[in-house]
């Protein structure tokens, strides 16, 4: 360890850059953080790259090309701790919508010469390829949670990221339930906390950008009991479960399928 500070690396796979930008958005903490860790590899911020191994690697984005499948193995080999940041890296991201379609047809919609484009038929989370030490959910991740995760790994403890649902955050914030008061469909009850329950505070239902909440002891919330409350058509429910965490909400989508009126 050069200079004796822990070494941090940030990696990008298929993504929008929003989760790594969250690190640069820690305007008040960035320079202090840079004094405590050695930012050894962070292409978005610096062209000085120090060779591995690294103590903590933050990985943004999903694996969606043959080359990236190889690259993530290399990143794992040179990282002591590997933390995935965001829905792309933990669930495949919005680009995993291809997993339910024909990727060649998708490519032909976007490109005149799809054969020039190297891409995989599926967009997969990092944990599908290599062991991951911690997954931070969100699209994008929350700044406070990111700082907690970094602090925890730097101090050598587990991060304290509660896995209750957005509902708890609404109560803490004092937001009146949009579903009860206004009948607005809201995924808050089945969505992982972390954002601070922004959407209901702005008068809209949660659309699930933090992905499913595992609730207590890893059991899924009772989506079946929730669905009638949502007051949406099956198509609408499927669509709202099919966005940035489309593969993570798989079980919930399947429940919705069970409920479909026979065609």
């Amino acid at each position, binding site marked *: 360890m050069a200079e004796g500070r822990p070494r941090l690396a940030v990696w*990008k*796979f*298929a*993504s*929008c*850059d*929003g*989760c*790594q*930008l*969250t690190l*640069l*958005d820690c*305007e*008040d903490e*960035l*320079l202090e953080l*840079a004094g405590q860790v050695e*930012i050894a590899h*962070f*292409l*978005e*911020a*610096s*062209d*000085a*790259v120090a060779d591995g191994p690294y103590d903590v690697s933050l990985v943004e984005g999903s694996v*969606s090309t043959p080359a*990236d499948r190889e690259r993530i193995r290399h990143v794992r080999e040179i990282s002591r701790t590997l933390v995935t940041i965001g829905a792309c890296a933990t669930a495949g*991201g*919005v*680009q995993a*919508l*291809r997993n339910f*379609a024909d*990727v060649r*047809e*998708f*490519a032909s*919609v*976007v*490109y*005149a*010469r799809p054969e*020039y*484009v190297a*891409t995989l038929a599926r967009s997969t989370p990092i944990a599908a390829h290599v062991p991951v030490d911690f997954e931070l959910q969100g699209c*994008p991740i929350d700044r406070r949670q990111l700082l907690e995760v970094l602090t925890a790994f730097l101090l050598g403890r587990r991060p304290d990221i509660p896995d209750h649902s957005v509902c708890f955050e609404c109560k803490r914030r004092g937001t009146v339930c949009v579903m009860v008061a206004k009948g607005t469909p809201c995924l808050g009850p089945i969505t992982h906390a972390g*954002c601070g329950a*922004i*959407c209901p505070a*702005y*008068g*809209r239902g949660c*659309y699930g*950008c933090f992905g499913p909440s595992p609730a207590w002891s890893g059991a899924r919330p009772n989506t079946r009991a929730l669905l009638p409350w949502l007051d949406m058509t099956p198509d*609408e429910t499927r*669509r709202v479960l099919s*966005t*940035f965490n489309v593969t993570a909400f798989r079980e919930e989508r399947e429940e919705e399928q069970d409920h479909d009126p026979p065609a």
Partner: protein
Amino acid sequence: MTHRHDRTLNVGALARVEGEGAMYVRVRGTRVEEVRLDIYEPPRFFEAFLRGRAHTEPPDITARICGICPVAYQTSACRAIEAACGVTVDGPLNDLRRLLYCGEWIESHALHIYLLHAPDFLGYPGAVEMARDHRDVVQRGLRLKKAGNTVMEMLGGRAIHPVNVRVGGFYRVPSRAELEPLAGILRAALDDALATVRWAAGFDFPDFTHPHDHLALTGDRYPIEGGTPRTGSGRSFAPDAFERHVTEHQVPYSTALHARLDGGGRYLTGPLARYALNRDRLSPLALEAAALAGLGAECRNPFQSILVRAVEVVYAIDEALRLIGAYEPPDRPSVPVPPREGTGHGVSEAPRGLLYHRYALDAAGLITAARIVPPTSQNQAAIEEDLRRFVAGSLHLDDERLARRCEQAIRNYDPCISCSTHFLDLTVERS
């Protein structure tokens, strides 16, 4: 150099850009034979999976194309869908859109100026390294960036992928009292923005001018959330004629499409184009800042784009203050946008340039086709041409220095590679 010699420069990982890209240059003797800006960001297929979604969904979904300029995606999407449905959002709701977008300009420009671009001029690999010698400067940049983010957080709910934007307006509009604290933050930021202009004006700029046409929106106000596309050569056309005037084609080495103007060719969109076509619509304070920066009627030196960005930050803060001062809360947070069958086109000025969206809707409001033309792909051909000319004029440099200068030339454009694509790999071959 008189002897014949071949060089290949290959920068395999461009740093301090958003997204992933590489650069390849081949020189034979004194002739630059090939220049490629290789965008290898994996394709994400937004235009394909938008099909079948409801007309209310693109603002949330297309925001995820780019974490640096989500408001641009949200705005162009809203405008296109509203156009398809025959709805116009104007008055205070449009002003709020403009205010949110000012937040994004401040945040994104401050990020580019201080964290991505200035280190090139001062000779540092990045802002963190720069902060060791210039801590106050970097702190000023971070303050400025934070001011932009604060506007986005108040109005949008959060700075990355705001949640409060919907087709037809917003989910909730702020009260006057809620906006008031922003004014205090922005007034302080104005000093930082003017200091930024003075600071950047002292950089050493290579003597270089670009020959491309310009494309930017124009209108009553300096273009941000909308306007009419217009070229530097004086042609103007409605947003719904965009695809007749701008054609995209694919090149084998890149996942981003290249765009050209019909009958013309390469063009540039972004700060230089906006400034050239709209200078007289800047606020008095921003015009003063332009004079302070030594800018004339137009700026054709891409290396000085940092100055134009700094002036635009002054403008965005000034304009945000004006909008806050004039704000009267609208009677409803959004206008209804009932779906109908049709096609709509929407344009707005992302920090990096014109961003065009088109959606075709069926009668139920489900999307049947979507087209998105981001600024970086429009600029790609112009960036390559600049590199070609720049390399030709800099062949006396050794490979390492030449490669560095090329990377800098690419960063002039603040290419946002996630939207189309983060990388420059420079290899030099000589014989």
